[in-house]
């Protein structure tokens, strides 16, 4: 069955991926097939619309699934059963009239209450205009009572102009009018409730609430599942997963963050308490480079969600003293009398090594079909991505990569991977050898993977001179696509 899926006009790259993950969660693809079909849906655009348009048609097996997806989604404004559409109101009327009566009548009877919403994209309608448009729908035989607060059925009239007739509208839509019945819609209170400024305990890289929910959706967080974040920090990512009922567990190398916070009522625990969420099952201080899991422990987590430290806002740290890594002749030995209160120093952790460890951890600790959801930085130049090599692992299949542009220099891509094959001895051994290689060429990796300098170094004079001609023409294109 085809439904009209209307998105909020933001995070364009994340929209379809979210709906596809949720459709998987709610059983749209009932078999755990390993083919591509299991994780993707059939999509269709309205006539002459650009893929960035907020209006999409999606094919879903049932209204129930469509409702569940819409109600849980962060980026779906609503899912609708379209009763008619057209380029003009005349066309719309024709179209609604030809929509099968038996599908309309159950929602028009005198026993039920209803409400009509008028919505527009890229333009604002005055109250009078909205009323006019509603009056014009009198060809539909509504018999029920009007109830604005709590109607049984909600109908939507949505219209958009094209950019030619409405200057300022992005060239992604053509004039189109839709009329339909609402199947489900996003919970608009969710993000304001959880927004970071209301959060008691925050760190410099806390994940914003909207993104944390998106990550939890990509990870299929749901009651009974266990979700792990190896770089937990203030717990902002796990808050999203906990909201959807998953059990959570987190680790961090910085003990001050996980243990102390900023006081008894301002720490990771209080961030969960604040929203009435169940507390994480465990928080611990551990190093993802040398994880403390017992031998034989595997397939423990249903999902791993994280924002690895990639050295732009915050750099990663791992065990092992700085001095030792710089090639000191004699290794540092902690004197026996100082062992109890010794605070071990840490060494910088390169992104490549960090991602290697993350994939190794995930391939071992995720259940089959479990998901690894994490951010990966990419460099940009002249508005396009320079290299597009996402990390790979034989146990995983990449099912979505959604870009969020952070500056003209770099963006972060949310990668969602599914575990498709078990962790074998051979894979473990290969990972161990790679691990040793990282140890031996530690400094080289640190230099190679230095994203910080690529992002923050001053632009070299040559390229900026070349750009000047372009800049003076159109410094900010009107339609910025993924920038929204």
């Amino acid at each position, binding site marked *: 069955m085809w439904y009209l899926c209307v998105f909020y006009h933001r995070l364009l790259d994340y929209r379809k991926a979210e709906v596809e993950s949720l459709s998987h969660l709610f059983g749209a693809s009932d078999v755990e097939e390993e083919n591509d079909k299991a994780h993707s849906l059939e999509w269709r655009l309205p006539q002459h619309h650009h893929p960035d348009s907020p209006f999409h048609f999606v094919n879903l097996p049932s209204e129930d699934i469509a409702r569940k997806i819409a109600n849980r989604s962060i980026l779906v404004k609503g899912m609708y059963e379209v009763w008619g559409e057209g380029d003009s109101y005349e066309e719309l009327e024709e179209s609604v009239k030809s929509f099968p009566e038996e599908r309309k009548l159950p929602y028009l009877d005198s026993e039920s209450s209803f409400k009509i919403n008028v919505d527009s994209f890229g333009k604002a309608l005055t109250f009078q205009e909205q009323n006019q448009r509603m009056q014009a729908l009198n060809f539909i035989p509504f018999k029920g009572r009007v109830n604005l607060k709590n109607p049984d059925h909600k109908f939507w009239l949505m219209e958009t102009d094209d950019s030619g007739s409405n200057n300022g509208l992005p060239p992604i839509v053509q004039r189109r009018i839709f009329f339909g019945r609402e199947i489900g819609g996003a919970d608009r209170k969710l993000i304001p409730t959880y927004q970071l400024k209301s959060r008691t305990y925050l760190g410099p890289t806390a994940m914003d609430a909207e993104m944390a929910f998106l990550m939890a959706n990509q990870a299929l967080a749901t009651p009974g599942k*266990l979700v792990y974040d190896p770089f937990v920090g203030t717990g902002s990512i796990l808050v999203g997963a906990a909201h959807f009922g998953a059990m959570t567990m987190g680790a961090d190398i910085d003990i001050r963050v996980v243990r102390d916070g900023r006081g008894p009522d301002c720490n990771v625990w209080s961030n969960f308490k604040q929203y009435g969420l169940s507390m994480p099952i465990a928080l611990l201080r551990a190093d993802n480079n040398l994880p403390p899991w*017992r*031998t034989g422990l595997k397939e423990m987590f249903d999902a791993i969600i994280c924002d690895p430290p990639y050295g732009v806002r915050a750099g990663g740290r791992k065990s092992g003293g700085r001095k030792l890594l710089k090639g000191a002749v004699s290794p540092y030995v902690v004197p026996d009398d100082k062992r109890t209160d010794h605070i071990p120093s840490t060494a910088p952790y390169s992104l490549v090594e960090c991602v290697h460890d993350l994939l190794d951890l995930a391939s071992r600790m995720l259940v089959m079909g479990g998901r690894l959801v994490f951010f990966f930085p990419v460099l940009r130049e002249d508005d396009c991505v320079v290299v597009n090599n996402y990390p790979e692992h034989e146990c995983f299949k990449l099912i979505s990569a959604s870009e969020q542009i952070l500056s003209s220099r770099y963006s972060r891509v949310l990668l969602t991977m599914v575990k498709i094959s078990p962790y074998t001895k051979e894979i473990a051994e290969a990972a161990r050898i790679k691990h040793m290689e990282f140890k031996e060429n530690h400094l080289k990796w640190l230099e190679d993977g230095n994203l910080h300098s690529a992002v923050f170094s001053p632009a070299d004079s040559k390229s900026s001179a070349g750009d000047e001609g372009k800049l003076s023409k159109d410094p900010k294109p009107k339609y910025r696509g993924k920038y929204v």
Partner: protein
Amino acid sequence: MRLLTHNMLSSNIKGVTNGFPLRIEVEKVVEKQVDLSPAFLRNMFSKIEWKALVDASHSFGYAELPEQADASMLDSEDFLRKFHHALLELHLEEGALICPETGRRFPVSKGIPNMLLHEDECIMMTVDKLKTTDPPSPQ
């Protein structure tokens, strides 16, 4: 720290071959009520080292768990409740986890186990240059 976490952790000090299960040194245990989720318990049961869980619950003074358990027992509500209580409701608030081989103490404070190793306990890039040192003798 809940016993579920204890059941997952081991001492990963260089040279230690069997760092599991960590011995528990109890200073303060607290009970925190958690909603029982049968689905989650079933999910976890197969991943738990049962003996380690039983022994650990003994060190907290909880003796209700049977010495042996198999998946068929998950149908019993009584068993589920006890399993749930041992796994998720008993917290080690203050104390330590002791490596069974070396006696190294991993402190647990405010409920957070500190599993980070000292510099000389991790496998380092200089490991080849080192003559293989014996792990520190047990206390």
